[in-house]
């Protein structure tokens, strides 16, 4: 019977084996490699598993955080608008707009908007009347403006007032101040303890001791 030539069992012709056959012999290169891998691979697998489980707990991960309500920057006011324009209508349906460089409403409970650099424009029967003041507060519910500092009222007559606080009621179109006031009217400069009048300057009452310097015919009041 012909002996099947076993490529790897031929002990007699060892020197006649090919490289591949030599490597495949027991104890050859392939065996050592497999023996090595037999313990290396499980160890690697275990190491990777360990890494997955242990690593998240050991290191302090710096990017995760707990959102604390008090630590977060809370805006103090409820509403802040820059270059705000507020369009409204008086009870009689006359439109008015209030524009301001800055408008802040402290909280929703208080219906007052604090304005800086404000200019109120009212549509009137005989032309618009504008009220300009450096700062003031707008009472939303009753359409009332309370402004501080020099107030300019431009309209057909056009006059200016300077007083601590000037109340302007957009509904009744009246301007009044209880604090000492100075101002200029078309006919001259005045100062008084109190003053009230309509926005257009049709009728103005200054009392509590008032002084009016009527402009001379040729020169201005201050001549």
């Amino acid at each position: 019977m012909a002996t099947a030539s076993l490529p790897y069992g031929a002990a007699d012709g060892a020197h006649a084996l090919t490289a591949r056959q030599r490597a495949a012999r027991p104890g050859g290169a392939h065996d050592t490699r497999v023996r090595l891998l037999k313990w290396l691979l499980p160890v690697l697998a275990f190491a990777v598993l360990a890494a997955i489980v242990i690593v998240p707990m050991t290191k302090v991960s710096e990017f995760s955080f707990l959102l604390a309500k008090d630590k977060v920057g809370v805006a103090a006011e409820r509403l802040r608008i820059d270059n705000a324009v507020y369009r409204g209508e008086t009870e009689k349906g006359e439109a008015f707009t209030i524009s301001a460089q800055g408008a802040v409403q402290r909280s929703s409970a208080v219906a007052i908007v604090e304005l800086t650099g404000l200019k109120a424009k009212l549509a009137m029967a005989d032309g618009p009347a504008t009220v300009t003041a450096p700062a003031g507060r707008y009472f939303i519910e009753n359409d009332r403006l309370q402004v501080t500092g020099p107030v300019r009222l431009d309209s057909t007559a056009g006059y200016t007032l300077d007083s601590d606080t000037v109340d302007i009621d957009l509904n009744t179109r009246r301007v009044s101040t209880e604090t000492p006031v100075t101002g200029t009217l078309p006919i001259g400069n005045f100062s008084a303890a109190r003053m009230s009048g309509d926005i257009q300057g049709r009728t103005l009452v200054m009392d509590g001791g008032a002084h009016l310097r009527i402009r001379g015919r040729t020169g201005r009041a201050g001549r």
Partner: protein
Amino acid sequence: QVSALKGLDSSAPVDVDAARIEVQDAANQAVFSGDVVIRQGQLTLYADNVKILYTRKTGDPEMQRLDARGNVRLISPSERATANNGIYDVAGRIITMTGNVTLDRGGSMLKGQRLVLNLDTGLSSFDSRGPGTTGTPGRVTGRFVVPQRK
């Protein structure tokens, strides 16, 4: 005798002090009430109520007339006059005082019903006609002081 108010600049600014001022722009007038004091140049006018009428031709209001009522006193460096009413016609440069007018000028006293002081000439004319009415009999009484001749 010529009043010191001669040549008073009626277009000079007028200073008005009062307890209450009401400006009625629509009617082009301003109403002053309560110890009104009006000063223009050397003229000082006291009254209980004053109404100033102005016109607005060139946009800038110009004072036309000044009506003073109640305890009107006119004070100037050269004379003192009192009356019930006074009218200062700014444009016409004439001050008219009516109703129990007394004029005290340098010690000499004049009484009558109507005094007209012309600011251009500085002269004042006195008559006894009632204010605005014509020819009511009245007398002008006067007491003159003759300056001592040293």
